[in-house]
């Protein structure tokens, strides 16, 4: 048995690529690295970090989040804090979504684009006040984002700080997450609405608790000082015993986000992609008076019309989809998968693919080339599963 790489996705290599001494030395670790080892986590290099890809097994962990509650250490994610009277203007200038209408304690999903419309990153903006925000960005993009934000700051009236290394982040996701966290927190968590957050103490440690996530389930993302991380993580695991909480690795994080059809930076969107084709027009506010970097390029793309559209693809029989598999219609290639995996909920392969608009209709019959075989598949409406986030 030998691991073979069909396609070139970096995610593939991770479960098996041996952690040699030299690679380990150059990888960053979260405050929980020893805890993960003790919990039986299988550690792999990911975006420059040594991260657990799985503990008990991807499918078990996936079901645990879908059916109950799980906790993810996502301390590899980057945090950038922006303060000062010009904060709002700077963020509005950088972001495609509407920053102006944000309220205090609100979070917003947005893109940050280049002049030509390519995506620097997709991220969450959190507003403490008009002159104080923090951004949660992709681990692999943190330095690039920081440089881009700094470059576009007009100098005075704003300070920009990369607080990633001193910040730990956990995601507690699943229907029991509120009841579980409430055991450790005096602030009423049911008052935190979807895409809002509060500064609150959890297990007596200062933290930011946001009702956000990347799984499609109700849940929270919690930010705190790295020095408290071990204690808070242990307290959540302990309090979660009643709910059968499990630690969840990056493997299940990927299958959970895939079932929701959520874009992953580096797969669906990157510097070269056209975000309007990715189904992200809902976070690109071209109609607003405010200008943002990339607006005119994106407006031009919009009026020219999309040549492609990101769709969900599901195998009709059993199998697994992988990034870069070719997709065909009537034996003619129409695209290749940007992401692909096995969906534990649907028990077969699912993927995301840019196709021409005439292939984008739900139910369109397609074939995916899996090694030498062409396997029957169809276009399905996203998300693959109904989301259960608490939109109230």
């Amino acid at each position: 048995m030998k691991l073979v790489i069909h396609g070139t996705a970096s995610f593939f290599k991770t479960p098996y690529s041996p952690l040699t001494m030299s690679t380990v030395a150059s990888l960053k670790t979260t405050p929980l690295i020893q805890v993960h080892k003790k919990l039986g986590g299988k550690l792999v290099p990911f975006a420059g970090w040594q991260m657990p890809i799985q503990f008990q097994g991807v499918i078990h962990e996936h079901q645990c989040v879908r059916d109950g509650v799980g906790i993810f250490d996502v301390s590899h994610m980057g945090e950038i804090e922006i303060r000062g009277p010009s904060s709002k203007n700077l963020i509005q200038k950088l972001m495609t979504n509407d920053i102006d209408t944000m309220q205090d304690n609100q979070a917003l999903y947005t893109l940050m684009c280049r002049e030509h419309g390519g995506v620097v990153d997709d991220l969450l903006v959190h507003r403490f006040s008009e002159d104080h925000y923090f951004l949660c960005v992709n681990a692999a993009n943190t330095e690039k984002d920081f440089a881009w934000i700094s470059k576009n700051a007009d100098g005075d009236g704003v300070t920009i700080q990369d607080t990633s290394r001193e910040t730990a982040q956990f995601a507690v996701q699943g229907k029991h997450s509120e009841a579980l966290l409430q055991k450790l927190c005096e602030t009423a968590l049911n008052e935190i609405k979807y895409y809002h957050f509060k500064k609150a103490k959890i297990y007596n440690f200062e933290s930011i608790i946001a009702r956000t996530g990347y799984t499609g389930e109700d849940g929270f993302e919690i930010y705190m000082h790295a020095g408290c991380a071990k204690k808070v993580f242990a307290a959540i695991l302990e309090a979660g015993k009643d709910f059968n909480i499990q630690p969840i690795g990056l493997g299940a994080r990927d299958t959970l986000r895939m079932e929701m059809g959520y874009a992953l930076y580096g797969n669906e969107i990157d510097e070269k992609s056209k975000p309007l084709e990715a189904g992200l027009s809902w976070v690109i506010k071209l109609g607003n008076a405010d200008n943002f970097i990339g607006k005119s390029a994106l407006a031009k793309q919009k009026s020219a019309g999309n040549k492609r559209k990101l769709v969900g693809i599901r195998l009709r029989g059993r199998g697994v989809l992988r990034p870069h598999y070719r997709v065909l219609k009537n034996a003619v290639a129409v695209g290749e998968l940007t992401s692909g995996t096995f969906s534990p909920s649907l028990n077969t392969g699912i993927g995301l693919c840019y196709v021409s608009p005439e292939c984008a209709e739900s139910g369109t019959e397609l074939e995916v080339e899996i090694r030498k075989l062409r396997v029957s598949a169809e276009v399905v409406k996203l998300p693959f599963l109904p989301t259960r986030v608490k939109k109230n």
Partner: protein
Amino acid sequence: MEIPKELLYTLEHEWVRVAGKNAVIGITHFAQEQLGDIVFVELPEVGSLIEKENPFGIVESVKTVSDLYAPTSGTVTKVNNELEAKPEMVNNEPYGAGWIVEIELADEKDLASLLNSDAYTKQCQKEME
């Protein structure tokens, strides 16, 4: 880690159970543990020839795709069709219900190059270091 005494092994973590002129082939406990949840197995056709050290099938976990290498040459006499619906049997019972193919050996002398359980145990220990 389970490594039955009566089986033969390869460095690529396949096992072979010889019975007369036939041999059943699967992947080891160590292999399935390394791969994690197995969700798809691609099997050869009955009657096809498999050739020592060449790929004859594929095992996919959620995150990995692995070639199965033939421990020895022969003609496929049976395949474990139940793996189509229940690939997780390779995880649950790698030496039992999770077997993969049965072949008729082309040449029993080929078996001489396979590892016994002691040699295979050492190999696994080496890989875990």
